[in-house]
């Protein structure tokens, strides 16, 4: 099963939940943890994996052969992303704008354009005790993360429980991370901000037709507004995680919640049971 842990709002506890869930489930079955928050990965800080394998990830960008180019301007005209500017005798490429659609190198009338690799980041793999660990690291200054997220997700295997730590927000990186999963856990906090962004995430998941359930982190035990929202949208509340100072201190020191409080293993086992119940129903 492929399971995403997302939130909409940042800082609600995606990593707390995904890391503790991975550690708990790895006692029972094969688990892979994929950190798709390639702009600021942090799963490794909690899981301390030994990274054994690293590969560079590139996207294709156009390269202009100035000998063949006659500055006709067709490439700039058809580029939907404005990644090319054609000046008399000089064609400029803006690799950071390019989406590698291939329009320019396929349709240049002079065949003056060839695709070349533009390296955007790395995928690193290793093990954190029983958990197979994969994450991506986007190069500083690169704006487009989905191709790297795709490369991280390509490391998933069918015979494992794959837990994907999704970047915050509801734009392309989050959409790319949740695409194709069997279920998405949405971690929220009982605050107006948390609820507002939870709703955005729910709307995205509904459009993608991905079933989801909610985990209320830093629960005050009441959480009426979140529960009311979930009731209205017919989304199951899968688990509540109490606000706990020791867990917060552990997080700041890079210690997963489930290792700070061994008894919380039960809490994450229950969460997984509920996810399986919802997925199979």
């Amino acid at each position, binding site marked *: 099963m492929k399971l995403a842990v997302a939130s909409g709002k940042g800082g609600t506890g995606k990593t707390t939940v995904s890391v503790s869930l991975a550690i708990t489930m790895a006692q029972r079955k094969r688990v892979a943890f994929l950190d798709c928050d390639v702009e600021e990965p942090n799963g490794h800080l909690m899981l301390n994996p030994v990274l054994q394998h690293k590969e560079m990830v590139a996207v294709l960008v156009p390269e202009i052969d100035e000998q063949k180019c006659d500055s006709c*301007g067709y490439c*700039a005209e058809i580029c939907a*992303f*404005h*990644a*090319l*500017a*054609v*000046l*008399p005798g*000089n064609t*400029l490429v*803006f690799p950071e*704008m390019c989406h590698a659609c291939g329009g320019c190198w396929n349709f240049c009338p002079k065949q003056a354009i060839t695709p070349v690799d533009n390296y955007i980041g790395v995928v690193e793999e290793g093990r954190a005790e029983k958990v197979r660990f994969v994450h991506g690291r986007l190069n500083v200054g690169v704006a487009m993360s989905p191709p790297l997220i795709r490369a991280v997700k390509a490391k998933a295997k069918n015979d494992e429980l794959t837990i994907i730590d999704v970047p915050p927000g509801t734009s392309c990186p989050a959409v790319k991370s949740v695409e194709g999963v069997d279920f998405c856990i949405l971690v929220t906090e009982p605050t107006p901000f948390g609820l507002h962004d939870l709703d955005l995430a729910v709307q995205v998941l509904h459009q993608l037709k991905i079933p989801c359930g909610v985990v209320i982190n830093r629960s005050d035990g009441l959480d009426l507004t979140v529960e009311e929202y979930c009731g209205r949208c017919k989304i199951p509340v899968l688990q509540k995680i109490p606000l706990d100072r020791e867990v917060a201190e552990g997080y700041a020191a890079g210690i997963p919640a489930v290792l700070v409080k061994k008894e919380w293993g039960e809490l994450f086992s229950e969460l997984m049971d509920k996810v399986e119940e919802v997925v199979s129903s």
Partner: protein
Amino acid sequence: MKIAVSAQGVSLKDPVDPRFGRCRHFVVYDSDTGSLTAVANPSGETSGGAGIQTAQLLVNQAVGAVLVGNVGPNAFKVLNAAGIKVYGGIKGNVENSLELFKEKKLNLMSDPNVSSHAGMRG
């Protein structure tokens, strides 16, 4: 030489637009013939690359100089490579800006003065 002014309208009396990539129009003054034309800029609603596309528009118009409020890095790179001179600090309407240009009171810019996406609405 053709001099383009980033503007909110099509005439000399229309206010300038401080944004480059997402300005509505360019009012283009030809200093050789004294003629005045307006060029619509379709990049206002584009999702990204407005500066590059707008600079390309001016290259295609064979403009020699552009008078702007702000210009970002990608647009500046294209304008610079095309040899189009960029003058900053325009205010008021198109006519005032052309006067300031003729009196050599505008700064010739050697670098972009805002970051990418500075002219995005919202």
